[in-house]
């Protein structure tokens, strides 16, 4: 009896294991990477927020995310600010080694377009139908999204340009709607503001990995100021993130993981307690490559040797076959075109009738106008 029962168990286990293996393989599959980089503050003294966001922009671009898949939202009032002694440049370091504003910057939402509403609309894709492609987050269930926000925040809110604020609940709801509509595969949410960790505390949608610069009632500090620029040029948390990325993740084939990045955070250096939220993210951080979010690594399928049949067809033969299929349709199309022509002619005659009607209407209108004018003249003479 016992034997009979035990025999299927190993096979069952094996199939289960095989299934799990496949699942885990599938899990890391994404076919595109997107980045949403937001600087929510304006004005010259917030130079560092713009520098933060442009540094991130440069990093994700360096690691291969194309501009068409980066949504950059910033006030963009710094590079050409009259107070800027280095016109048309933005630096994130006092050594001014790297001009972040150099060339090839594509800002998608600029100036007063950086609003809470636009941000929520961007995430949920509830946009005007005529919104250009560059202003839309056209992701699907195979897209990994990196969301980076910086600005002035507080307990469960983040100010947008000193005019309005977004709350942690709003972002959480927006992400939930994205998840519902299968608009992301996995997401990394990174925020550098004061009390930043409160912003991701309300998230409830799966597959979001979140990290922030400081916990509740903690400020997030700037790293250093440039005396010639006259203001702080970068925030500490972003600075040390960038330092890690620059030194370790040299190119898109880097094998560093998110765990390495998070382990590199040092409270003494950052001067606040960076937080990481992993309970929604069902993967071991030491398996998650940094380039899963910061880079754009495309899966590639090639044919094996001798498999060229699979990836190659004789296109002229195919064309012949396809023509075979469509030739009856083409004839139909021609017939349809003729029919359409007939209809069009009919329409023209209908137009003529309309024109006549409009002419009579014109006459009626003109008479009415003249009558009104007469009445007015008459009225003005009456009291005398």
């Amino acid at each position, binding site marked *: 009896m016992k034997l009979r029962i035990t025999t299927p168990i190993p096979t069952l286990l094996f*199939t289960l294991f*095989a*299934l799990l293996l*496949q699942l885990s393989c*599938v*899990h890391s*599959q994404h*076919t595109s990477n997107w980045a949403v980089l937001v600087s929510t503050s304006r004005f010259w003294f917030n130079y560092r927020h713009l520098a933060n966001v442009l540094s991130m922009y440069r990093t994700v*671009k360096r690691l*291969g995310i194309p*501009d*068409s898949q980066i949504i950059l939202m910033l006030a963009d009032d710094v590079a050409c600010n009259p107070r800027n002694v280095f016109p048309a440049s933005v630096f994130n370091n006092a050594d001014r080694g790297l001009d972040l504003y150099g060339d*090839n910057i594509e800002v998608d939402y600029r100036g007063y377009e950086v609003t*809470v509403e636009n941000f*929520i*609309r961007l995430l*949920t*894709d*509830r*946009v005007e139908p005529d919104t250009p*492609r560059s202003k839309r987050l056209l992701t*699907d*269930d*195979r897209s990994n999204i990196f969301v980076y926000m910086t600005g002035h925040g507080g307990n469960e809110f983040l100010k947008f340009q000193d005019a*309005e604020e977004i*709350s942690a609940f*709003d972002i959480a709801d927006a992400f*939930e709607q994205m998840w*519902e*509509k*299968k608009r992301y*595969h996995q997401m990394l949410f990174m925020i550098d503001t004061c009390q930043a960790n409160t912003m991701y505390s309300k998230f409830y949608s*799966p*597959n979001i990995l979140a990290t922030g610069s400081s916990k509740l009632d903690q400020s997030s500090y700037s790293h250093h100021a440039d005396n010639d620029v006259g203001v702080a040029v970068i925030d500490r948390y972003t600075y040390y993130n960038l330092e890690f990325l620059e030194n370790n993740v040299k*190119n*898109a*084939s880097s094998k560093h993981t998110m765990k390495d990045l998070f382990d590199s955070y040092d409270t003494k250096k950052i001067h606040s307690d960076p937080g990481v939220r992993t309970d929604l993210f069902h993967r071991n951080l030491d398996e998650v490559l940094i380039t899963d979010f910061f880079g*754009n690594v*495309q*899966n*590639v399928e*090639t*044919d094996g*040797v001798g*498999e*060229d049949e*699979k*990836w*190659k*067809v004789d*296109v*002229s033969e*195919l*064309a012949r*076959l*396809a*023509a*075979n*299929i*469509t030739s009856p349709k083409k004839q139909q199309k021609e017939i349809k075109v003729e029919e359409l022509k007939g209809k069009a002619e009919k329409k023209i005659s209908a137009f003529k009738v309309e024109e006549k009607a409009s002419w009579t209407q014109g006459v009626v209108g003109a008479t009415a106008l003249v009558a009104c004018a007469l009445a007015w003249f008459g009225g003005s003479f009456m009291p005398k």
Partner: protein
Amino acid sequence: MSDAKIPPSDTPENARTRSWVVLSFWSVVLLLGVPLWWCTTSIYRAPLPLNEMQSWANGRACRAEFPLLVDVEAPLLPDPEHLLKTVQHALDDANDFSAHHLRLRLSRSQSETSGKDGRSVLHSTQLTSPSDGHSDEDESVAAILRLTPGESGSTHSYQLNNSSRVIDLYYSPSYNPSSTASSTSLSIFISNTLQEIFAEEQQMISHLLSSATSAPSPSPSAPGTTNSSNGSNKVNVAEVQRKMSRIMRYSPTYHLTFSLFTASGTPTSWEIERSIDDYLQPLLDALSGISNFTVDSQVQFYASMSPNVVPSWVPDNLEQSENLQQNGQPGKWVLKRDDLSSFINSAEWPLASITSYPTINFIVYVPLEEQTPLYISESATNAFLLPQWGGVMVLNPSKPTTHLSKDDLKPALDIFAAQLMSLLGAPSHPPSLPIRLDSLTRQRSAELLTSASSTLGSLYRLTKALPSISIPTSVSTSVGSTLSSLNNACRELKRGRFSGPGGALEEGRNAASQAEKAFFEKSMVGQVYFPEEHKVAVYLPLMGPVGVPLLMSAVKEIMKLIKDWKIRRAGAVAA
């Protein structure tokens, strides 16, 4: 001095006027103010057919069926009815995914079936179809099985015509209908043949249907479900998953961009327009029943690969030292597989699309003359495919040239055509193009049906989860038309009408686009979240100055009324 000035006593008229004033203020507040406040702050939520939406999302509203009709022509076979019955039984038994099933039908008038294109739909006797009455004339025939005796001494074999739906099946001449063994062997062969031909499609559809009906679960890749008990399908899950991850999401229109990226200044021109017209356009026309295509092309000179992709030199003769490469040493440059994933230089190459519909990119890359020939390791075609994105082919011109002619481009288009088919999701297996296109139609119908249903489900959960969101009437009309399109699509699927006007694909397309429209209604942006204390902060300055006098005067009036009433009662008692 003694008669200090005291205000004149309140006249009854004054008191009455004051009462009227207070009453009128209160009536304005109650009759006009409160309803106005109520109307302007309430959120309009159009009624949605929530139950129906939920049942579609759960997959309960419609059990999608894909009945494939196979016409059988057996002019020389004695007693074909009996054979068909056994084959049908074998098919039904072997089929573990009942929604997708094959149905055999015997063509009555054999003589009419000589039409080579296999499109003629014939009057038929309902022999073995499962007794349902709605097999219309316009039901499309998935395949035509033509049974003819093979050469003497041969075993059963079949041949599939590339250009039609006809499957020529040659049965062994030793076939004897009266012998059970012989008839079983033929029926098994037929059923295996048919299953083999439609196996890939069946797997894809079963995967699509099973993955979609499950609500979004914490793990994004929950569909490891094969819901079949036998082991043979499980092996293919990974393969099907891989295929699914490659396929572009359905869109009524795709944009194809053909790019020539050359690392140097040559070649300067290519005959892409003629090549596409001659080679690809017929295929695009044939696909137009499923999706439309727009095409453009571009040439980019001095387009370098991403800086971190460096091909390595592999000499043909490995004994020679590697640094001899410049001395005319025969050899080749090789791109490793790891290089390919960052081959696309997205920072430099102008591949961003401005169309509102998805773009499929096809890239011909001509390397530097110094780096020719450039090969991709382990690739026989020197090309690779990027899932959901497009294809790349490295073209090594045989001699430095300024012009790529149609013949030079043919190998590239050979590959691109295959890549296009696989990006669109056409099954690779049966060589017959009409059958593959039919399969694609059915797959896309299933995809649209499930995507529309899941969008409805998302909308349903959204309206439940976010009570502060407003739902305009346009959403409810869109949902209504989605539901009716879904119902039509489901009905058409059951009837076996997949393509054509009013077919399942078109209805599914309507349903999906209407569902998207409903979900992405732009006025449905969730209201900015207000904590309760914010509401107090908004209302208090507004209500304080108005509310306090109103309330105090009301209290005064009521007290006066009570006092009057008491005096009157006391007077009545005294009298």
